[in-house]
């Protein structure tokens, strides 16, 4: 396959950036988008051009490191699929693909396609946990949890933290990310004692860096973990409930 790539190049967070066009003549349909970048980078280095910086690690869709805008779409054309699992078989021979960093005010560009997503961790630090000191846990089976409940908690817990929901959203809202964690822990008995404080503090932390949700649903289409928009409703419900309580 012959693929033309237009890639965002930017050396530092403060420097100006722009798209640069490259071609890869020996691409194959089995290649992932990241493998295409590997292939291109090998050529660039051999021609003494600095390679394109991009984030990636596990290359099997679970670490959440990768994620770029592919022709303006977070992660790429295949829905609910991370960039590392987007393959060239989704494109025609001779295609031009534009790769840009996932954009949001909360995601400053570090270099080329790399962005800073630490704002997401600040939301987790604000309350995305159960405060159980090591060693204090009761016997695991002493609290039965209905299978359906556990399954739904697992649906929410599947978030890989790639941040594509924010990049896809016209408001740069992180409500899918926040809702997934709030909803998971609100479903489980272990999450009850801190349920209200968690919803309040995580929502407040999110509001510092991210926009509000206006039910567009672009996050749902981009999410590689298939998180349901139900979690956003759950988040709103949890925040409302928390506002009635002083706990």
């Amino acid at each position, binding site marked *: 396959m012959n693929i033309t790539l237009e890639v965002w190049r930017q050396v530092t967070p403060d420097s100006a950036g722009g798209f640069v066009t490259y071609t890869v003549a020996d691409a194959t349909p*089995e290649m992932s988008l990241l*493998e295409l970048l590997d292939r291109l980078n090998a050529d660039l280095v051999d021609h003494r051009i600095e390679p394109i910086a991009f984030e990636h690690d596990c290359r099997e869709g679970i*670490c959440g*490191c990768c994620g770029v805008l592919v022709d303006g779409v977070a992660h790429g054309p295949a829905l609910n699929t991370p960039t590392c699992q987007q393959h060239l078989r989704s494109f025609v021979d001779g295609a031009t693909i534009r790769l840009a960093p996932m954009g949001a005010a909360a995601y400053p560009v570090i270099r080329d396609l790399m962005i800073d997503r630490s704002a997401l961790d600040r939301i987790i630090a604000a309350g995305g946990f159960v405060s*159980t000191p090591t060693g204090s846990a009761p016997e695991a089976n002493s609290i039965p*949890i209905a299978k359906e409940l556990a399954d739904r908690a697992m649906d929410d817990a*599947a978030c890989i*933290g790639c941040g594509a929901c924010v990049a896809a959203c016209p408001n740069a809202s992180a409500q899918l990310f926040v809702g997934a964690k709030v909803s998971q822990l609100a479903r489980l008995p272990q999450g009850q004692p801190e349920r209200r404080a968690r919803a309040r503090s995580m929502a407040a932390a999110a509001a510092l860096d991210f926009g509000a949700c206006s039910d567009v649903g672009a996050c749902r289409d981009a999410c590689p973990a298939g998180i349901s928009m139900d979690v956003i409703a759950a988040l709103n419900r949890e925040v409302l409930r928390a506002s009635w309580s002083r706990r």
Partner: protein
Amino acid sequence: MTVADELIEAVGVEGRISSPADAFREIGEPLAVDRPEGPVDRAWANHLLGLELVNPANRRTFTVIVVGTGLAGAGCAATLGELGYNVDVFTYHDSSRRAHSVAAQGGINAAKAYKADGDSVERFFRDTVRGGDFRARETDAHRMAELSVRLIDHFVALGTPFAREYGGGLATRSFGGVQVSRTFYARSQTGQQVQLAGHQALQRQVAAGTCHLHTRSEVLDIIVHEGVAVGVVTRDLVTGAITPHTAHAVVLATGGYANVYYTSTLAKASNVTATWRAHRRGAMFANPSFVQFHPTALPIDGEWQSKSTLMSESLRNDGRVWVPTQPGDGRQPGDIPEHERDYYLERMYPAYGNLAPRDVSSRAAKLQLDAGRGVGPLRNGVYLDFADAIARLGNGVIDERYGNLFKLYEEATGENPRKRPMRIAPGPHFSMGGLWVDYDLMSSLPGLFVGGEASFAVHGANRLGANSLLSASADGWFVLPFTIANYLAPQLGSAPLPLDHPAVLATVAEATERIERLLHTGGATRPDVFHRQLGRILALQCGVTRSAEHLTAAITDIRTLREGFWNDVNVIGDGEHVNQELERAGRIADFLDLGELMCIDALDRDESCGAHFRVEHQTAAGEAQRDDDRWCSISAWEHDAAGGVPRRHSEPLEFSAIPLVTRSYR
């Protein structure tokens, strides 16, 4: 020459038999190890009673460095932070959630014995020691089995959504090498879920101000002062700043090194640098050649395929492994009739069938591939077939069990495993070897603790499935916090080494000099080219099977390759910005050193055991043949700072609770 003369000639000056490894290593004193007292099943409890404690009010006066935020690192840091210690945590990722523990799929073992299938801590312990082919310490394996019970409680309390039965209790499944069902799981994302539990607990401590998380910071070296590890030198991967950090103790929880083979099931950034630098500073490296090849990885289909994606072993609960009986059979799998298929695992190992342990399964697959019965375009895979399971259980049940894995497979290959059998192949996966540690998980470099896959710990010569999440978690949450306190207690009142101390400045200067050297070789070849070549050498000559002849050749090849690297590597860009080529080059430089030591260790260990299969040592049936008279020991390698050959020390292994027997899964 008579037989007696030959024998005399073969016996060296120390009265030992000469070995082809003689040219590549020296033999040092046997390791004297403090073992916990009493019977194995009381060892940890007795040992705990003897450990010194640090008063809660004094804990904040101690600083501990933790490198890595996987299961071992995040668990250790979060627990220490919660106890009140000052913790500096380092990860080269942008977040503490991304460590490669996140990619483990199948599950985490625990001897909860929730099913009436005869499980117990004792049985789990035995399975682990036997699975490791009697090359692990009994005491350490027993401790892991004991702690497994509390770990499941702990993860559930942290909100980990493990799979449940309809009655609300925790569900379990079976894994390779055992006949009970003791694997707890969260769909096929168990690693992710226990990783997130650690990440969240760590973030809680970050918010509380006890843990200071340094993201995008890679450790380049260990600071050693008067023979004690007192800190690390890191490089900020965004600004390139090289900075020292000192503390009262240093923990390395930096994962495994199977990426030395270039394509492996590991994440691309996984590397050996922190532990290798520690090795060069005095920490011994144990059993470096013990690397597990996972039998259910995806075959490599093309030059640019960047990794061999792992398919969980849990698939072998319902999938059947087969190859065509005829070599070179080019038919589609559906066109090959039942009587022309060889379900070789079921045939060779009827008692365990498709759930034979990993080393055994990988070797059996390699036999089929070597005989030309491989499948797929490059004939480098075997089939894993779900047709029978789908016929028996229906698509619904199979999707519930393996839906995510099927999606992953489909995304990676474009093929639907419900309609066409998966193609799988052995891929480098887990390193049982690692930095040598004592029962307290302290390396031979005092002050340097090692947890999880970075250490050599409990898995012997072969790790059982779902024991890696367990061993890393147990080390991090429930062992290191106790043993580190014991190490810190006598240091009360002391301060970490000042950052302007000559020992600190010298290490910073060395790390800086090395970066400069990598940037300015003036060479023409990309770092990756060397890595690929190293991978090829190791996969062919120090892989699923090994021989003295191949290993000897590999050592020479690697030395030549390393010389080529330092003369001809082209690291483009500078040290002041994000430079992923520079990051890679530094890691590959250390892999080149490690690769050589792996081959030396494999050549030295003149027996077969677990994943280490020397073709010279096999039974008539082709199984690994241990030599317990000569090799019932751990090989701990000492680096020679003067540039000479490495020195091997042996730690003898004793088996008091489990008699040494030949493993059989037939």
